[in-house]
Every structure is written in structure tokens, then in C-alpha cells.
């Protein structure tokens, strides 16, 4: 199968399945090497970026999914209802952001950061399919570990948890240092 046809086949696959399709599955369907297929998908993604295309291909941790470009939301919403996303309260968002950045994380650890209990919030997030159980921590009581789902990536427009905006746990110190610097600068100018 030549490159052009392979890309056309990838387009056909992503379109007809609608949901996210894992790279390994696409590779098997094309009977081609995974790395080659990955580079083809990337080429296709770039081509979709062109102005004359209304669709885009998003990446969700080693899987790909086709969807419309945000720019055409206004046209689409006139004739099609967008399935309602769950409205997340502040509590849910806070809990979710802690899970997203610190996963895998236990409930106790989340509670330590938030200073309040969060069993209800975690359950709700699991119910909304934004958070899932990842197994159990090898520690006394074998507490459950939580992490984010693919639906989380899709709902928040993130390719992978590694690509979450800015701050990562190890950046807290950096953040602190920065704040201190600003503080000193302010003190110097007498604020």
C-alpha cells in the first residue's frame, strides 16, 4: 500500500469508527509498521490543519480520533445539538486538577492537599468517566489509586496527561522561588 492510499485508509478508519482508535490497531489494519503508521497519521494531521478542511485529528495517548474543528462550532450548533457536558463545580474541578497532576493518587493524598474530604467528589468524577481507578497502592490498607481517563483528555482538549498546561508537581519549588523573587523585587521598590 503506498503512502497516499495508506493515509486515505487511515482517514476511512478514523471516520467510520468515530471513537478513538489505537495506533496499534490502525497499524494492524494496514499491515504496516507502527512507527511508519504514526508518521503517516502525523502527516495526515498536518494536512487537516489546512484552511480548506473542517475536520481535525486529535491525539489521545497513542490513539487518534477525528472531530470537527472548533471554528465551525457556530455553524454546527445551528442544526445539531452538542451532547451536554457535565457541569463541574469548583470542588470537582479542584479535585480533578489534583488527580490530573498527581496521578496515580489515593483519596487520602487528595484530601491532604485540599484540606477537606473528597470521597463524594471522586465518586462523582468516576461517575462522569473523567477519573478511573488505576489499581491499589502497595501500602497498608491497600488504598485505591485514581487517575484520569481518555474522556478527560477529550473533554479538556489535552493530548496526553504529560501535556497538561504548565505546572507539574516538581515545578512547585520553581513556582515558589519565582514568587519569592517577585516579592523581593517588590520590597526593593518599596511596595
Amino acid at each position: 500500500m503506498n503512502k497516499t492510499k495508506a493515509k486515505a485508509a487511515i482517514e476511512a478508519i478514523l471516520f467510520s469508527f468515530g471513537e478513538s482508535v489505537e495506533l496499534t490497531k490502525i497499524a494492524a489494519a494496514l499491515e504496516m509498521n507502527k512507527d511508519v503508521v504514526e508518521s503517516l497519521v502525523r502527516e495526515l494531521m498536518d494536512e487537516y490543519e489546512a484552511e480548506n478542511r473542517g475536520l481535525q485529528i486529535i491525539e489521545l495517548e497513542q490513539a487518534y480520533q477525528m472531530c470537527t474543528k472548533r471554528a465551525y462550532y457556530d455553524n454546527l450548533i445551528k442544526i445539531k445539538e452538542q451532547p451536554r457536558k457535565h457541569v463541574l463545580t469548583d470542588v470537582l474541578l479542584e479535585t480533578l486538577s489534583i488527580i490530573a497532576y498527581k496521578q496515580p493518587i489515593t483519596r487520602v493524598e487528595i484530601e491532604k492537599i485540599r484540606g477537606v474530604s473528597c470521597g463524594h467528589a471522586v465518586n462523582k468524577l468516576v461517575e462522569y468517566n473523567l477519573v478511573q481507578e488505576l489499581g491499589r497502592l502497595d501500602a497498608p490498607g491497600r488504598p485505591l489509586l485514581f487517575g484520569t481517563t481518555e474522556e478527560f483528555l477529550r473533554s479538556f482538549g489535552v493530548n496526553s496527561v504529560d501535556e497538561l498546561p504548565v505546572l507539574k508537581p516538581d515545578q512547585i519549588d520553581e513556582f515558589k522561588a519565582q514568587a519569592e523573587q517577585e516579592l523581593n523585587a517588590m520590597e526593593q521598590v518599596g511596595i
Partner: protein
Amino acid sequence: MELNVKLDSFEGPLDLLLHLIDKNKVNIYDIPISLITEQYLEYLGEMKRHDLNIMSEFLVMATTLLDIKAKMLLPAEVTEEGEEIDPRSDLVQQLIEYKMYKYMSYELRDRQIDAAKNFFKGKSLPKEVEEYQVPVDMAELVGDMNLVKLQEIFKSMMKRQVERIDPVRASFGKIEKEEVSMEEEMEKMEQYVLSHKKFSFREILAGSHSKVKMIVVFLAILEFMKMGKITITQEHTFDDIIIESCME
């Protein structure tokens, strides 16, 4: 200070503290602990008391604040390197981390609003693809199963069927309630294990004419396994289970 903000609107004690720090325009690294504690307690006084769960979380923080306040009055503790320990440092650390996640949660909210503008679609496989039945790979399905094994399975099943028909009870005219005590069965089993050393699971179950007794026998075996008094082995699926004594 005005108390026009209700406690309900705070996510928790850390949230309230951040609000107070912000409101007083003080530096998070140099919290005027007396002032903040005083204001914090004022809020707490205004709090509706009906939800004890929420209340208790706020109270824990209140004690932490009072504890810090007390420590601030004492001469500072010193680390091995001779640095003074700020009693506020743990709280500051916690506040900063919390603040960071709170900030991130706003960022996530924005992203969710944007991402909701992408439309996805459901599966729409062509009919020919949808109706396609995956052919079964017989070689893979049958695997290493063969006629001899199949016959073994059949035999063991016929045997089980015979065993299900209780030969003793069938000759009785009436049904008697059977009292089965776990302790008694354990004792009997222990003796059996001691006297037999090696015996079959089926053999031992055949003597149990009631479900309750079977369950108790089974539990006794599990218990002995747990205690390390016996070991069990089974060569293949459907084979009999062999129980061996580990007792001296």
C-alpha cells in the same frame, strides 16, 4: 471586618485562608498569623452549625492556626544547621500547593469550554463491514484439546451426575435436618488428614450428603490450607484435587 461572605461559599479551610490572605493583601510567605487567625475564627463563629462534617474540617484548621500562633510567641526552634524554623512553613507549603491546583482548575475549566466546541461522531460502519462475521480459527479455538481429553471431561461429568444422586438419602423415607458444626467438622477432618496423609477431594466430598455439610467440609479444607496443615494439587482442569497432609 464585614462578614458578608458565607462560609458555604468556601471549598474548605484552605480556601477560606487564601481568601483572607488575599483580602488583607498580605504576603503568603509572611502571614500575620494573629490577624488571620482572628478573622478566621470570626468566620467560624458565623458558620451555620448544622453540618458537623464541614464544621469539623474548619475547626481542625482553627486549632492549627492557634497552635502556630502559640509557637510564634515562643523562641524559635532551630535546625541542625542553625536555621530558625518558621512555625508557619508547613501551612505556607500547603497553601501554595493548594493555590496552584486551584489555579489549574480555572485553567481546566477554560479548556473544557473550548474543547466542547469539537463535535465528535458515533460509529458509522458501512453495512458490509457491520454485518461481517469474523471467521473462527478452528485450530486456535480447539487448541491442544483432543478426543482423549474430551472423553475425560465427559467421564468426570457422568461421575459427577451419579454423585449428585444421593445414594443414602434415596433409601430413606424422610428428610432429617442435619446439624453441622464447623468445629466438629474441623476435628474430624484433622483426624482424617492425620490418618490418610494423601486423599482425594472427591472422595471426601462424597461423604457429604447435604449442601451445608459440603460447604463446611470445603471451608475446613480452606482453613487447613491457610494454616499450612495441608497442600493441594490438581494436574489438569476437571481432574480430581489431591490433598496431602503437611502435619507431622
